[in-house]
């Protein structure tokens, strides 16, 4: 299992700053996590973990095709409940399958920045999910990454492989209990979506006011494959930066990114980067950002490399306070003829007209604002099973989303 090349590259990048986001002093976090006890069934998990998971939309029940829970650095459960899905801790998977070497650090570079370098130099912790060839299920794999120790640097490395013709849905909730004063979460994820496979990946974040987050995601999609990637973060976080990159490598591959952010403080730098590398590929990225405080940078980059690729970006922001900032950066890079690429970006306030309309029906100004904000964040997501759609809706509707 030792990979001298990966480790060597990581070592050299240990001080390499990331291209985006506020630089974090990794030395100020601890790497040694106390181990947690493994459980056989999700029901046996500590009450506080189950509660936290539920809070980020991860209902660890029978209506799933598998469960993965990681507390700090310990995978406490990794269990598939559907024969079509294999679910292991990444450590176990690396031992079991030699072929994983061909996937390990292939979509995210270990020396991309100091955060990936940090993960590459740590013992592997994370999940391995494999949807077997032709196997389909609408029941999602439910996973929860739980950061339960103060000052810890939680490092995660996940791999998802959706084999030819499979259908896989994954929901991951990342959360920390309220008592955690300070923490860092670095998650490396590599998704391989093979021919005609259909994958949805939904991530719900709920961190604390002193938690910093650096997900690093690489995705490749083969011919006829599709991905619906949904990211939701409605609770305060100190700093968060992520810029998942998807490469559409096969004819007709499709990627759609939906991002929903409600910011009240801190610095959030999110986006998606899609490379359309094959004919008839298409991609859509929609982000909805509300800021009542804090800075949000919403990026979107699409690169069209072959004729016939289609891409659309939409970044819409509602800025409801003088204390906030929304910086929308849509980028289109056309590198071929016959491309169809477009974007729309808007940053503004709540329409007076909409507010007045609802107030004429008897809603107070605060109620009307909240209804409009929730409606704004209710993105129509395609390609999700009904239950997950409802779960996302519940999360956006439940929050006490106010104006400034």
């Amino acid at each position, binding site marked *: 299992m030792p990979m001298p090349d990966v480790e060597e590259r990581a070592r050299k990048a240990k001080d390499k700053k990331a291209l985006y986001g506020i630089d974090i002093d990794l030395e100020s976090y601890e790497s040694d996590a106390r181990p947690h006890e493994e459980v056989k069934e999700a029901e046996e998990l500590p009450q506080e973990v189950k509660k936290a998971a539920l809070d980020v939309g991860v209902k660890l029940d029978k209506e799933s095709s598998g469960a993965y829970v990681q507390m700090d650095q310990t995978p406490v459960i990794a269990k598939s409940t559907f024969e079509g899905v294999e679910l292991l801790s990444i450590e176990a998977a690396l031992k079991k399958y030699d072929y994983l070497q061909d996937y390990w650090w292939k979509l995210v570079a270990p020396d991309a920045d100091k955060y990936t370098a940090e993960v590459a130099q740590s013992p592997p912790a994370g999940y391995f999910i494999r949807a077997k060839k032709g196997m389909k299920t609408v029941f999602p794999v439910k996973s929860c990454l739980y950061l339960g120790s103060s000052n810890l640097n939680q490092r995660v490395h996940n791999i998802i492989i959706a084999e030819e013709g499979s259908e896989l849905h994954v929901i991951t909730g990342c959360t920390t209990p309220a008592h955690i004063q300070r923490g860092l979460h670095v998650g490396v994820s590599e998704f391989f979506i093979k021919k005609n496979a259909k994958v949805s990946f939904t991530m719900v974040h709920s961190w604390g006011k002193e938690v910093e987050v650096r997900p690093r995601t690489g995705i490749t999609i083969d011919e006829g494959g599709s991905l619906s990637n949904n990211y939701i973060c409605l609770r305060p976080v100190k700093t968060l930066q992520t810029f998942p990159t998807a490469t559409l490598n096969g004819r007709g591959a499709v990627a759609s990114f939906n991002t929903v952010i409600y910011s009240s403080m801190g610095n959030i730098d999110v986006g998606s980067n899609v490379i359309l590398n094959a004919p008839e590929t298409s991609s859509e990225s929609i982000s909805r950002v509300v800021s009542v405080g804090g800075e949000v940078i919403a990026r979107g980059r699409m690169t069209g490399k072959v004729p016939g690729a289609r891409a659309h970006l939409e970044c819409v922001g509602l800025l409801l306070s003088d204390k906030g900032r929304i910086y929308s950066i849509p980028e289109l890079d056309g590198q071929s003829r016959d491309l169809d690429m477009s974007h729309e970006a808007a940053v503004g306030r709540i329409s007076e007209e909409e507010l*007045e309309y609802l107030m*004429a029906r008897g809603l107070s100004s605060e109620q009307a604002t909240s209804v*409009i904000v*929730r409606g704004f964040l209710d993105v129509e997501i395609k390609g999700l099973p009904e239950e997950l759609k409802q779960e996302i809706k519940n999360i956006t509707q439940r929050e006490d989303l106010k104006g400034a």
Partner: protein
Amino acid sequence: MENSICLEVIWLLEIEDLSVSIGGKLVLKDVNLRVGSGETHALFGPNGTGKTTLLNVIAGIPRYVVEGGSIVFKGHDITKMSMDERARLGIGMAFQRPPAIRGLRLKELIKIINPNADATALLKEMDFAAFADRDVNRGFSGGEVKRSEMVQLLAQRPDFVMLDEPDSGVDLENIKLIGEAINQLTQKNMRPSNRTKSGLLITHFGHILEYMKTDRAHVMLGGSIVCSGNPKEILDQIKKSGYEGCVACLCPT
């Protein structure tokens, strides 16, 4: 007599010498209007004469500046009251061109307006059940917007309902439906003496008046009410000699 307490109760809405400006421009001049409890009034007048402004000012849309005069509703001076307070006091309005609200389903809005309302029944009543899960007014045609407004008002059950051109863009089949809804909102199925709900509507061509009942009509010109009287007589007069006839004030009083 006019200032006696007894009469103040009878007038549901009493507007006195109301002058209003927007962006420094005077758009309503000394408007006087009284609507009694259980009465429905129609408001006629050419485009840009201040009809919609008057409704907006009664509803309390904050863009307008009241330069003088007062609006009294149910005996309360509401001239400075916020929109939502007015709505909760019993004022409702069907907007001429309401905005679309993304992510808010029509049936959810009905529940917010009135948690006790039977949304399904109301939608069915306006032949609008298929729009229950649509975002409010988003992508609705002109006629659909009007039905959406009526469904919301039927849930809100205001004591005083204002309707800004409820018939514009509506096909004949649905005009009847909307007329019936207005009759319901203004209790036209009840004996006149038992009615307590009132209304004020703007209409250009009066089509809607064939399907609903009004008690009195007013003509607005240049930001003032210049003439009031029987709706049919006034409409006939306008059809015969246009609004110019009203300038000469030939209307019956």
